């Protein structure tokens, strides 16, 4: 049915449709509405889940871990400080090979208190072994959450998936939302290493240096295998429901001389900037990175690249800009913009492109205007 929903409600609706057996979550702005809506679904009986209103995010992830290892589907949601409070267990979930799905509403980190969008929270979890997808619309929040369950639970993945949506810009924005009849789009969960009293085993006992690295390698092997699973899942999704997704969403890139790379809502807003620039005769295109782990390949050869990072790694640089320098040898004009919900319009983005200085870093709103 076509309706209007916030990003948070869209995530909750997808969770209802995927029907996890256990949901454990703790509220935090701007994720709260997800937790509230799931609680309502459970109370009304629309969602037949065990809902555990835990006392902290650390416990939210720990409860999902305890539930998931029994072989059932699990979900949680968090944001920012909550994500980092559960950081230990975020690592644990991946190492334990548990296909937990988590929505993270991207938000800045204090101090000072800031509840608005930034990607640094999730980027700081990038080395944990979680797959990470960043969405650009409310519809995509719903679609990506559904696909996250199927991808996480796929036998050649069996890793947790984090669905990221920009705080307020998506979590609280109301867009059209078309739900789907999922039928068998997500097969029943089968965890090959589920805990079983008929077949006792010790999980995570002491593991020596001669063995430990094997399990780390298997996380990486699964991360690489997930590329195909993601492709296959997104293809089947398009086939069944008509909406098309790729690890990178390209816009007017075919003949582009300059490409804007961004994530989340900025990646969508960049498309409007591209249209504006095209009208001026600038051959611009945009690439919105959706899957950040596994990190995708981008065809940037022979083009100027403008990267907008709504994040920063202190003492290093914008995470996407530095990543593309490492993986694609790009020398981008690295724009740091939108931190803590800083307003960045398509006009601003068009300005970044017009006045680009490849190889340099530019803090929007801090340094003299481009």
């Amino acid at each position, binding site marked *: 049915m076509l309706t209007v929903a916030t990003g948070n409600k869209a995530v909750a609706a997808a969770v209802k449709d995927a029907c996890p057996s256990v949901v454990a979550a703790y509220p935090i702005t701007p994720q709260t509405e997800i937790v509230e809506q799931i609680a309502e679904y459970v109370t009304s009986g629309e969602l037949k889940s065990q809902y555990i209103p835990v006392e902290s995010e650390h416990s939210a992830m720990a409860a999902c871990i305890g539930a998931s290892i029994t072989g059932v589907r699990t979900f949680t949601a968090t944001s920012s400080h909550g994500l980092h409070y559960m950081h230990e267990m975020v690592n644990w979930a991946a190492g*334990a*090979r548990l296909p937990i799905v988590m929505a993270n509403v991207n938000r800045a980190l204090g101090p000072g208190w800031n509840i608005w969008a930034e990607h640094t929270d999730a980027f700081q979890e990038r080395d944990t072994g979680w797959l990470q997808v960043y969405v650009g619309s409310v519809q995509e929040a719903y679609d990506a959450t559904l696909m996250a369950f199927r991808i996480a639970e796929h*036998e050649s993945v069996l890793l947790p998936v984090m669905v990221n949506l920009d705080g307020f810009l998506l979590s609280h924005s109301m867009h059209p939302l078309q739900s789907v009849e999922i039928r068998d789009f997500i097969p029943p969960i089968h965890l090959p290493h589920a805990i079983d009293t008929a077949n*006792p*085993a010790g*999980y*995570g*006992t002491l*593991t020596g240096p001669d063995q*430990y690295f094997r399990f780390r390698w298997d996380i990486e092997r699964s991360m690489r295998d997930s590329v195909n699973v993601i492709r296959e899942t997104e293809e089947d999704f398009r086939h069944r429901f008509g909406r098309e997704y790729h690890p990178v969403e390209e816009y007017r890139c075919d003949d582009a001389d300059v490409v804007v790379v961004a994530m989340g809502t900025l990646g969508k807003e960049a498309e409007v900037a591209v249209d504006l620039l095209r009208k001026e005769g600038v051959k611009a295109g945009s690439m919105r990175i959706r899957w950040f782990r596994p990190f995708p390949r981008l065809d940037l050869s022979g083009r100027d690249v403008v990267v907008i990072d709504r994040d920063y790694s202190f003492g290093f640089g914008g995470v996407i800009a530095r990543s593309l320098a490492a993986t694609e040898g790009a020398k981008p004009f690295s724009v740091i913009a939108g931190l803590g919900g800083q307003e960045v319009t398509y006009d601003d983005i068009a300005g970044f492109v017009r006045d680009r200085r490849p190889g340099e870093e530019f803090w929007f709103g801090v340094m003299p205007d481009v």
Partner: protein
Amino acid sequence: MSTRMRLAISRPTRGACGKTGSWRVFRPIVDLEKCNSCGICAMFCPDAAISEDLEIDLDFCKGCGICAHECPKKAIRMEREEK
């Protein structure tokens, strides 16, 4: 369980921690004359190294001496291991 090694799952194994009998400094010696088979030694053995028939499994007995200390008949004595 798939053959793929995804995570550290350990299987129950006798002797998982090796033959802990080698840890012993003192060995329990039972005086069968004094023993009245009350079973208190087996009850208190932290490692269940004393069987129902009150046989001490010297492959695993760590020589803690609880059996000797708790025996109401003083039927067990601890003797220095000859190595």
